[in-house]
């Protein structure tokens, strides 16, 4: 059972390719962190998953075979867009009534209780709320729909550190009790390490990693050795090099730890792994630009 499946998904706008040949299979019940630099294609991927954007080629399905944007998918997938766009001119209470009227399933009691919990005034206009409060309202409305898949596009970007922590704690609590899948994009690596169990790293529209977090950490090592020491070893992919005069620190990916025997290697953090991939992508981009010029 997959929460999101994509097959050679490509999305091209008039001037750039936002996603290129993305193939993914995210298992249901996962909390997935979608990570990547600005303009990597995260929002495009999420909008394709929610049916807001149509793919140029390839396919995507949600919840094991539903077409994104179809009525069946809309009834099961909730989306909180970046900056939580809500109607600014109506009150929070009206917005709750609006969301209730637009969904076949809506837990009004939950919405009321949660808005009370996060101290959002019921009668205040949405436009008068702070950015953090608006994010809380948007998340509450999405969760009150009791979705099977919750898609969040940088949900904590407008929140202060305390609100962010509470937000994530609440999200995890909901995931634990309902069993829903969550896909969220984020720039905060510490945050994703705390809540996610699956990571999708996307750079320049291409998927770099898409695996469970534990697996990613287990399959990556930092190897300190001379540049030539890794030559000739099979099943090793060097992701990133930080070279010194004689020795270099290499971030490598391998499924077979035996290949690293005899080398000075140690485990690394998720943050270092992600940064290694980002540096590699940046290096490739620089080389491409040099090649073009």
């Amino acid at each position: 059972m997959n929460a999101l499946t994509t097959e050679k998904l490509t999305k091209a706008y008039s001037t750039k390719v936002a996603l290129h040949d993305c193939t993914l299979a995210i298992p249901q019940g996962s909390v997935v962190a979608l990570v990547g630099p600005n303009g990597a294609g995260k929002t495009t991927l999420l909008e394709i998953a929610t049916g807001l954007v149509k793919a140029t080629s390839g396919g995507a399905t949600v919840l094991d075979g539903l077409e994104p944007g179809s009525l069946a998918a809309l009834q099961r997938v909730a989306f909180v867009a970046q900056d939580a766009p809500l109607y600014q001119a109506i009150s929070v209470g009206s917005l709750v009534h609006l969301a209730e009227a637009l969904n076949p399933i809506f837990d009004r009691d939950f919405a009321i209780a949660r808005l009370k919990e996060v101290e959002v005034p019921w009668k205040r206009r949405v436009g008068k709320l702070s950015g953090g409060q608006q994010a809380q309202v948007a998340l509450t409305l999405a969760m009150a729909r009791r979705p099977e898949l919750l898609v969040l596009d940088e949900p904590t970007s407008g929140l202060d550190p305390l609100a962010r922590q509470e937000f994530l704690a609440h999200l995890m609590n909901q995931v634990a009790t309902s069993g829903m899948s969550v896909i969220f994009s984020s720039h905060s690596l510490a945050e994703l390490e705390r809540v996610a169990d699956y990571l999708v790293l996307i750079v320049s529209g291409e998927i770099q990693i898409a695996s469970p977090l534990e697996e990613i950490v287990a399959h990556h090592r930092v190897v300190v050795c001379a540049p030539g020491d890794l030559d000739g070893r099979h099943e090793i992919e060097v992701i990133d090099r930080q070279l010194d005069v004689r020795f270099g620190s290499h971030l490598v990916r391998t499924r077979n730890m035996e290949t690293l025997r005899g080398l000075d290697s140690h485990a690394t953090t998720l943050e270092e792994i992600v940064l290694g991939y980002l540096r590699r992508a940046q290096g490739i981009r620089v080389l491409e630009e040099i090649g073009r010029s």
Partner: protein
Amino acid sequence: MTALAEQESRGDRLRTPGVKIRKIVRAVFIRNRVPLAVLACLFVASALIIHWLSLGIVVKTSSQTYENPQYLLYFRLLVFSLPFLVGVLGGAPLLATEYESGTFRFTQTQGVGRRRLLLVTLASYLLLLIAGSGFVSLAIGQFYRADSPVQPMPIWAIGGFFSQPLLFVAMVVACFCAGVFIGAVVRRTVAGITAAVTTLSIGALLIYVELFQKSLVFMSSSVTTNFDSFQRHAYLIADWVENGHGQRIVNGGLLSPAQFQILHVTRHYTFWVQFVLASRYHSVQLLWAVIFLLIAVVGIIGAFIRLGGKDRLLTRPKATDQSLRASPSFSKGRKGEEGGPKSGNLNSKNESEESN
């Protein structure tokens, strides 16, 4: 079974009962109450102003002259700007503001289906527009009653060619739908309004030209005769005065009562009228109404195409609520209970109770 068919079949199986129309209407009114109220006020205010003008215009018994002729100008301005205002201020921003503010990401990902939501939204607006413009066109008829010595028509049939109920309502609907389409294409409020102003101005100009060249519209169906032979149940297209040498002097409507009396009574000059019989007049009106409604339909279809979406408009969901409850993730317990929600105001629960 193909992969696509399998996907559709699964979609049908898992779909919950669709959101009821009255709930969507409620949502539309929550979301659009301000523009809907503004439009309603616009119609009521226009009708009241037209009624007030009709009280003040007072036609003198000598015909073709008014106590307050400037009222006729105000009236025409109001009547022809109303559809324009509806298109520019009601239609164009309807979808453009959604796209500009990003709220379309909220509405289009709700469990109702974006096409269905747009359909109900447009239907709600159109109902209001038809009722409002129909009401205004009756006020217009009331205004023309003051000018009816040669046209003893009922209130719904009297008045200018484009201001009678059939055409006026169709024109308002067409302007609104054209505005919606333009807004959906442009996706920016100010730019959408500007584009709508430009487009509708061009349309208004064409209509204005047409209005003052009625002989083109009623070519081969109008009758030109002297004033005395003007028939009842006919519509006046044009009138003018000719001297004894067949030279046109001035349009009849611009003559002062004294001039009219001299010219008409002394018979030194002939007062000509061009008219068309009511049946033919209404046929042409009907044709124009069809043209306006076609514009409206094209606008609506264009807006739907621009909106995209994959929900079906006209088919009823096949699955029952139980299919949702039977789905694995739902039955894990939404409230920490087995088998789905046991408490709270879940809509599905309410709806199943309603259906029982």
